[in-house]
């Protein structure tokens, strides 16, 4: 490997670089606008959220968040007058709209479902994917290439095409609208991605690592755990993020296969209805909260993503 060839590419000029930078910044802003809009909508009042022309400057309110987490009923002023004074700020906020809180909404539950199903299927996909990728990379498997291609085929069909058969199958075996059913489904789709991504990472790890451990008296499994897994950390982190993003955002299967106990947040959020139409601030609040876990997860794993895998191990 020579370092001289890397510089043979002509360095872009100053203006070109400036232009390239500007394009990137503009593109980033354009893609950020919907997110920013959702974020600020979460802090508007229902009237502000649908006012025209749209309000960029407004008085922030937590009404969206309160509406997101509660169900409310409208009451007559006479009834309102008989109530004791409000105990909390959100009681007060709701009453100012001539309503009282009837109970918690389903959002918390749906959010938990997303967490359970998202992280559960991510864990399973990465777990199975790691073992399969190791096997594909290290052992002589008959028809390995065909198998790898076959595994990938689960990714090729659109959910809509298989949703009905899966729905019928799930109903028969009692998996419809269950956490387990959704975890299995998302794992099935994600494991192909996991195998392919992780195989690339295992291929990069010199076999000599495990062979050295084998010669030192370790079993194949011990060598895998103590030597290969630590080297795979980067790949596992990257794969986990991809799997989580898919499972977290998945909409079509969730819409068709879940309705109650196992419903995830994506099909739930658009159904948040206020009086006289969709409750945009509550939806904005829901989407904002929905974005957080993936964001936090990615930030937590960032250190692994950026670290080189076999740095300093092998001189090529």
């Amino acid at each position, binding site marked *: 490997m020579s370092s001289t060839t890397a510089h043979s590419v002509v360095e872009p000029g100053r203006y070109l670089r400036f232009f390239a930078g500007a394009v990137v910044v503009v593109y980033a802003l354009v893609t950020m606008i919907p997110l920013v809009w959702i974020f600020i909508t979460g802090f508007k009042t229902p009237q502000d959220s649908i006012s025209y022309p749209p309000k960029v400057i407004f008085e922030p309110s937590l009404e969206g968040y309160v509406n997101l987490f509660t169900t409310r009923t409208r009451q007559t002023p006479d009834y309102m007058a008989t109530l004791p004074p409000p105990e909390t700020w959100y009681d007060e906020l709701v009453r100012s709209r001539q309503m009282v809180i009837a109970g918690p909404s389903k959002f918390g539950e749906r959010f938990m479902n997303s967490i359970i199903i998202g992280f559960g299927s991510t864990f399973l996909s990465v777990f199975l994917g790691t073992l399969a990728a190791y096997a594909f990379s290290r052992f002589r498997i008959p028809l390995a290439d065909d198998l790898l291609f076959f595994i990938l085929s689960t990714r090729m069909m659109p959910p809509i095409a298989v949703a009905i058969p899966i729905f019928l199958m799930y109903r028969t075996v009692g998996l419809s609208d269950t956490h387990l059913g959704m975890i299995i489904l998302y794992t099935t789709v994600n494991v192909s991605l996991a195998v392919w991504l992780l195989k690339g990472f295992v291929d990069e790890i*010199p076999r*000599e*690592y495990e*062979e*050295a*451990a*084998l*010669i*030192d*008296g*370790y*079993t194949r499994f*011990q060598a895998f755990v*103590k*030597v290969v897994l*630590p*080297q795979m950390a980067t790949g596992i982190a990257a794969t986990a993020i991809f799997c989580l993003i898919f499972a977290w955002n998945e909409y079509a299967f969730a819409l068709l296969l879940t309705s109650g106990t196992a419903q995830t947040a994506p099909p739930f959020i658009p159904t948040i209805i206020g009086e006289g139409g969709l409750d945009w601030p509550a939806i904005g609040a829901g989407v904002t909260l929905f974005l957080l876990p993936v964001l936090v997860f990615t930030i937590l794993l960032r250190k692994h993503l950026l670290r080189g895998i*076999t*740095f*300093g*191990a*092998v*001189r*090529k």
Partner: protein
Amino acid sequence: MAEIRVDSLKKSFGDFTAVKDSNFTVENGEFFVMLGPSGCGKTTTLRMIAGLEMPSSGKILLDGDDVTFNRASHRDIAFVFQLFALYPHMNVRRNIGFPLICQGIGRTEIRRRVEETARLLRIDHILDKPVSGLAGGDRQRVALGRAIVRRPKAFLMDEPLGTLDTEFRDLMVRELRELHNNIGATTVYVTHDQIEAMAMADKIAVMNHGVIEQFGPPQEIYDRPATMYVADFIGSPPMNFLAFRASLPKGGSNIDIGNASIEIPELREEVEESDLMLGVRPEHIRLDDTSAFRGKVIGTEYLGTTQIVTISTDHGQLKARFAADIPVREGETVGLSFAGERLSVFDRGSGRALHSALHDTHAETGG
């Protein structure tokens, strides 16, 4: 400590045979070097001895026990890999101690042995450093440490110094041999560098295309090459070859090349009329004005105490090693004579050395 015996070992990858019928014995405590060019099957042989590769046929015996089908982990052999150095996710101390952990050895004992090993290799000052920043030599010492710390029956080393620069390599060659003298463990060392091999080996096996061409102590391999390949591979500059055609009787000790009569060690076999090669080491050539064998000096290279003189003759080019103070001029025609009792004669077709008085003092070895 152990004796390693390799018996008709063969390894094929599909149609390609990487190792063809290898036979050799590494005696207890011996430093055995497998020498050969890239791709000749050195690593493959070593991997079979270690148990990382199953032979296609043949046997491997450790101390007389057949271990051919034993797992690598059950052979108690340490391996220093060609490219692999160290685990990047562990520091030096943990790298060296890693082989001990699975043996159920206590923490304090591990610590003691790691430190003892580090002292032996003079790396005790870097024990707690990460391995990523280590210099090549230290890295190789740590890799050796990993092997030594276990006190295995035998060491297998696959070009452990291949990635070091020359200066460092010379130092490590001396250190390795010293280390071997101290711990006396049976070692199989693989290299493509003949100088390394000559400097360290008790015995050398010269390999080419999966075949062991010769097996013996360095001196014997140098003085009595079994094949033209070995003669050419060993020595710098390598052995000179002069082509001639003759039929030679058993007991003959003279050959004619051109109009010169050259004395050779007495032949112990008869040769029918065939193409032959006279093999002459550069240091066995003398200037001799009375000789009928003549050539023209076409180049000289001074090496301090000696000089390498290239001489063009009617029968091929020669490189001769003379003392540096012998005056030789380029373009000059010189007479040459050879140290008759040190010459080899090869059959050009098979490359095999003819049996002669040269081999009398030594029993036939090799494979």
